[in-house]
């Protein structure tokens, strides 16, 4: 019995001493962290995707608190959480934020297997960056989507995939949080973050080819030939044509779709609009 008692007392004493040491250490070596950082971190989605520009949500929380102390948190935005989360964070820190429009990644290329014939076979490492270094790729267009999936690999939200039939990248609107990882991954800068638009409607030029019209057409049926018909047609001055390629400014575009109608190669794409009514056809017949 004595042994058990001694064992209990000794172990208990060791435990007490250890606890005391730990307590003293935690006080003496404590690192002061602003409690707001932990609170802000709680509000953030915790995806650590890097879309805000920081390595993780912790870094973003730190920057937000520092920004709040400096007087402004403009320029800091969590694309995953969106205005919802940013609003809560702003309330917590007692700051005001400008309302940002939701954005989505847009793949500006429609060079599917059907539109853009393959003239060669690539037999190397299946990476867009490698194919890009090798040459124009498997088609005659040196600007179009290579379809190896560097963007798919970069996306942490499973929001982009390479369609097996068309061979080009396709974005899943529901999942895309506009973090920009795919934009950085694409070696040809084909992907752009554009405004999602009301009801997800947006209009953009699905081509970034800087080749002259005749050359571009030979490579791909739906390429932009730089004819500038769209530029002339747009009532809002939203379109500029430079380097044989047209570009629609998302800030100025009013979704009127006049450009879509005049584009001779159907290079301009309108997304999520209702299908044209069959009424027009009946009128023609009559």
């Amino acid at each position, binding site marked *: 019995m004595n042994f058990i008692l001694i064992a209990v007392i000794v172990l208990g004493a060791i435990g007490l001493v250890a606890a005391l040491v730990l307590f003293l250490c935690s006080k003496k070596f404590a690192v002061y962290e602003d409690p707001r950082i932990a609170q802000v971190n709680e509000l953030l989605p915790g995806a650590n995707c890097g879309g805000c520009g920081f390595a993780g949500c912790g870094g973003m929380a730190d920057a937000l608190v520092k920004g709040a102390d400096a007087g402004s948190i403009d320029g800091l935005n969590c694309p995953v959480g969106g205005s919802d989360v940013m609003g809560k964070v702003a309330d917590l820190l007692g700051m005001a934020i400008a309302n940002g429009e939701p954005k989505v990644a847009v793949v500006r290329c429609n060079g599917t297997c059907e539109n853009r014939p393959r003239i060669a076979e690539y037999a190397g*490492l299946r990476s867009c*960056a*490698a194919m890009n270094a090798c*040459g*124009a790729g498997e088609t005659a267009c*040196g600007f179009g989507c290579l379809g190896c999936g560097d963007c798919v690999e970069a996306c942490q939200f499973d929001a982009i995939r390479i369609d097996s039939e068309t061979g080009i990248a396709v974005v899943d609107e529901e999942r895309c949080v506009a973090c920009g990882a795919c934009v950085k991954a694409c070696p040809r800068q084909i992907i752009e973050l554009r405004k999602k638009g009301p009801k997800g409607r947006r209009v953009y030029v699905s081509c970034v080819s800087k*080749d*002259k019209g005749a050359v571009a057409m030979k490579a791909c049926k739906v390429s932009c030939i730089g004819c500038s018909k769209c530029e002339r047609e747009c009532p809002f001055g939203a379109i500029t044509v430079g380097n044989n390629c047209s570009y629609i400014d998302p800030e100025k575009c009013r979704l009127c779709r006049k450009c879509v109608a005049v584009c001779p190669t159907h290079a301009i794409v309108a997304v999520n609009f209702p299908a044209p009514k069959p009424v027009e056809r009946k009128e023609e017949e009559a």
Partner: protein
Amino acid sequence: MKIKTFRIGGIHPEENKLTHEVATKVAPLPKQAIFPLSQHIGAPASPVVQKGDKVKVGTKIADAGAFVSAPIYSSVSGTVFKIDTAVDATGYRKPAIIINVEGDEWEESIDRSDKLETLKAHPELTPEEIISRVKEAGVTGMGGAGFPTFIKLTPPPTAKAECVIINAVECEPYITADYRLMMEHADEVIVGLELLMKAAKVTRGYIGIETNKPAAIDLLTKKCAEAFASSDYTVEVVPLKQRYPQGGEKQLVDAVINRQVPAPPAIPVNVGAIVQNVGTAYAVYEAVMKSKPLFERYTTVTGKRLQNPGNFLVRMGTPMKDLIDVCGGMPEGDNKLLAGGPMMGKALTSTEVPVCKGTNSVTIISDDEARRKEPQPCIRCAKCVGACPMGLEPYLLAKLSEVKNWERAEHEDITSCIECGSCQFTCPAHRPLLDNIRQGKTTVMGIIRNRNVKK
């Protein structure tokens, strides 16, 4: 006597020198010649002609675009058709001058005689004069890289040149253009070497030749003994063990003068050597002694399935299709069309790509050899480490590039990679090592450039 070679790594690919004994033929003139404005390292040249201008053989059509650049001369006579874009050896459309060929009229200033002009007969030539003529003639490295020669001949103030080494190694399989040049124009090559030595203000010269070209070694040894018998210059013909990549300039310097060039940004002249391809030496001779700018070159057109592979004297701007047709046309089935040899050549998607200053060979690889085998996981056999001539660890660099660990890749000296392909050639698991390493190297070099700019 032990045959010299480089100290680390190396492989032995199949020689396939199919055109070794095929005498050089003059290639037919094309109907349309295409001159990309960027055929060299440095800024692209800027055109000095417009649509409709008449040009002769040897007329300047583009001027150097910056200090590190070179002018371009027409290799044909005719009318400028347009200044547009054309697909070049990079695989992309780049600005180019396109000329419709009419006749074969040469500029009067060019000396077309066969008379051998020696340096002894022209004591008035100063180093500065030689360099100036080389610069004006647009001579760039003919071994494939295309570095403007005149810059190599004026080393930076921190480095002192001690010798000129002529790279006549031709270690790549299939290519025989340099060998035929040596056999058919040895005298001119030697004068070219002399000019280079005078321009670089050195008295020692070496000519490195692999032992698979014994006739060339004998011929050049004999001619050098005659040419430099009573001269201030000493020239040694150095037979080198047949091993790839003996023709890499760092490996050549190591083998010939037993000095290893340190990691980039060091260059061979930092250990006293100026390396020039034997084709460049010939071009220097023609530029200085014959007032002939650079517009034609020796090119091998070869491939196991080609009917009549051969060596050609080609006017630059000739589409490769013309040369392939002379050799019997593209073989049936799927092929790989390479500008260069199988180890470091560039695969092309079109036969319309023109021959440029650095096109030493058009190689056609057919059938099974044209495709890669399915890669397997790395078995850690370390054969790539043994093959790497720069003492690197390709398996590690490839893995680091794959997982995008740029910091560690830089630490493991990825920038020293000379992209020779020995590692991928050796790998038993058929892994695309160089594809990965190249990506890593490009990214790391970009990071280093940005870092230096910020400083």
